[in-house]
């Protein structure tokens, strides 16, 4: 809806030109009515422009240099167009950074901070973060960990500001961070103010304000999110899904297909016996062959099992062995059983072909007198002792699954290493980095 005609007569001019009382240079006022001090870009003098009149505050004769973003440059960040109207170079010990004051008459002021090539977008807070512990503050439900503390000095001033800015002015600063955000407190003897700085990726700044790309900022900014951080979470999710899929696949497809079964009688006298099961046709290029022997009557005894899978054509032998053993009894703790009536063995990577499975087996009694059994134990002829041998093939094998899991995990592990390296470099810049010699009280 367009504003009513009578309300929007001619638009108010946005810029007012002043002439510097020191050097005569033209100083543009882009936030008239708000601006208190202007730093002349030609001579560095500070002018007071509160309500119209221009007064010289401090006289200087040195140009303050041209900021990377020339004042008057406009750019769109977070959906709003901003104009750079002020520039400050500040420092704290050896650390220097640039600050640009952004203005939009309908949205007020914001800050653009450039430290070591990395950019942040700062919004002054009307609310006050709540003190959590001596090393953290809370704002809107998020915790910020302390990072810097010190005193910042203004070294250079160009353009206009809504307070009495002066070269050499100092404020006490404190910074708290969480990934992507820095909470900054500035305290002077007159006031305390809080600013929330949001990290802005290089490419966004290049597009918005046409700055030169800085490339990699190393060590990272205190609040720069680890580029691997988000990737790790996503990687863990994708890897987890892949692993779950692999597991499901191995359960669905990796289930053994049983295709041969034969019952072999067990001799009562416990001699070595053998039997041949075949032909067994294996059609896959390579497969796992699983042999399961079950001894239904087995009680207090064991059966030794030796398998030889013989290729009919090449006479190549794949050997495996197993045992089924089961015992039971009663002691002071009550009745007990041990062992299992079946034996499972598998032979990996058997090539295609026709095979015979030769089973050598021998039944044994554990307690030969058989006093536990009125019928004389499991091998008595009345029990018709026998072994049921089943042969099956499977397509997946545990180690394959493991290998696949390793392949899935490898990039993630590399990402984790890079992430930890990034975080170490980032935290290494902090005034509060934990020292190994210190106790655990931090």
């Amino acid at each position: 809806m367009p504003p009513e005609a009578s309300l929007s007569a001619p638009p108010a001019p946005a810029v007012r030109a002043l002439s510097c009382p020191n050097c005569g240079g033209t100083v543009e006022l882009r936030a008239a009515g708000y601006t208190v001090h202007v730093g002349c870009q030609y001579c560095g003098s500070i002018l007071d422009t509160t309500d119209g009149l221009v007064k010289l505050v401090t006289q200087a004769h040195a140009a303050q240099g041209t900021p990377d973003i020339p004042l008057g440059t406009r750019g769109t960040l977070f959906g709003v167009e901003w104009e750079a109207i002020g520039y400050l170079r500040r420092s704290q010990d050896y650390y220097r950074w640039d600050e640009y004051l952004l203005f939009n008459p309908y949205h007020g002021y914001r800050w653009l901070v450039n430290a070591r090539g990395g950019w942040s977008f700062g919004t002054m807070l009307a609310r006050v973060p709540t003190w959590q512990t001596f090393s953290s503050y809370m704002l809107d439900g998020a915790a910020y960990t302390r990072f810097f503390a010190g005193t910042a000095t203004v070294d250079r001033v160009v353009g206009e500001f809504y307070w009495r800015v002066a070269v050499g002015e100092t404020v006490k600063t404190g910074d708290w961070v969480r990934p992507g955000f820095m909470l900054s407190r500035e305290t002077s003897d007159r006031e305390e103010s809080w600013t929330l700085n949001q990290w802005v990726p290089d490419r966004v700044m290049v597009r918005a304000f046409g700055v030169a790309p800085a490339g990699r900022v190393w060590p990272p900014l205190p609040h720069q999110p680890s580029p691997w951080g988000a990737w790790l979470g996503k990687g863990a999710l994708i890897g987890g899904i892949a692993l779950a899929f692999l597991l499901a696949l191995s359960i669905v497809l990796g289930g053994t297909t049983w295709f041969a079964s034969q019952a072999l009688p067990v001799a009562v006298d416990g001699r070595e016996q053998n039997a041949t099961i075949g032909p067994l046709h294996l059609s896959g290029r390579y497969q796992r062959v699983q042999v399961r022997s079950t001894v239904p009557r087995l009680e207090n005894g064991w059966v030794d099992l030796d398998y030889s899978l013989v290729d009919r054509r090449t006479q190549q032998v794949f050997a495996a062995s197993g045992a089924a053993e089961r015992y039971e009894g009663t002691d002071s703790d009550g009745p007990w059983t041990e062992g299992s009536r079946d034996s499972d063995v598998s032979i990996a990577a058997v090539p295609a072909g026709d095979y015979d499975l030769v089973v050598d087996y021998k039944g044994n009694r554990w307690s030969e007198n058989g006093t536990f059994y009125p019928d004389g134990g499991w091998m008595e002829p009345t029990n018709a002792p026998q072994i049921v041998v089943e042969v099956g093939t499977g397509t997946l094998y545990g180690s394959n699954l493991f290998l696949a899991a390793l392949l899935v995990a490898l990039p993630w592990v590399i990402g984790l290493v890079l992430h930890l390296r990034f975080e170490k470099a980032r935290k290494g810049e902090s005034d509060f980095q934990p020292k190994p010699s210190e106790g655990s009280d931090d």
Partner: protein
Amino acid sequence: MPRRPNCSAASADFPMSLHLPCPNCGADVVFRSPALPARVCDTCHSMLVRSDAGLAQFGIAAALPFDVSPVQIGMRGTDAGQAFEVIGRVRWSWTDGAWNEWLLLFEDGGTAWLGEAMGQFMLLREYPFGDVRSKTLRAVANGEPAQVGGRIELFGRKLAITDARQALCITAEGELPFVAPSGWQVYNVDLRGPDGECVSLQRDGKATSFYRGRYVTLAELAPCGLRAIEGWALPDYAA
């Protein structure tokens, strides 16, 4: 959902509205509320005060210095579901800058101030100082200076004194609850809470006024009739 103010509607004509000729230039001046006895003539900038005896002139209001404020007289908006219109402004200054106080007249005849400083806005309503239970603020009302950084407990919140300064009236326009002559000085103390709530105390000699409110954004007031500023697109929130 607060109802959107209708920008195309004619300026609200309150039942109390009183049209009088300016004693200085004869132009028609409107007084829309008995609570707002002062106004600056839009034509000749005379400062006028209405009383039973008629209109008296209190000098001429100084010209407003050029600024790029997005607010202007006639701007409408809503707060807490109630529509308002901007009908007056006082511009103040202090040693470190200047700011605007815009007077809002609500549908129910109530008023509030929209303080505009450093690109931020505060919406404040007058609150009886007699109901303010604070020793610190009582002391300030009795002439003591306020300590910036000091903390007090008020309305169940912890508030910090963020500003204490002598303010100087630069000029005024539109309708006002008081005469605001240029050069008028008041002692102003601002306090701020953790969630953007704020209170303001103004001491003028023996009299103390007290205001209570919160930080707001222009967007949440759903404004229309914002001032157009050359080269700047009107914001989305004013569409």
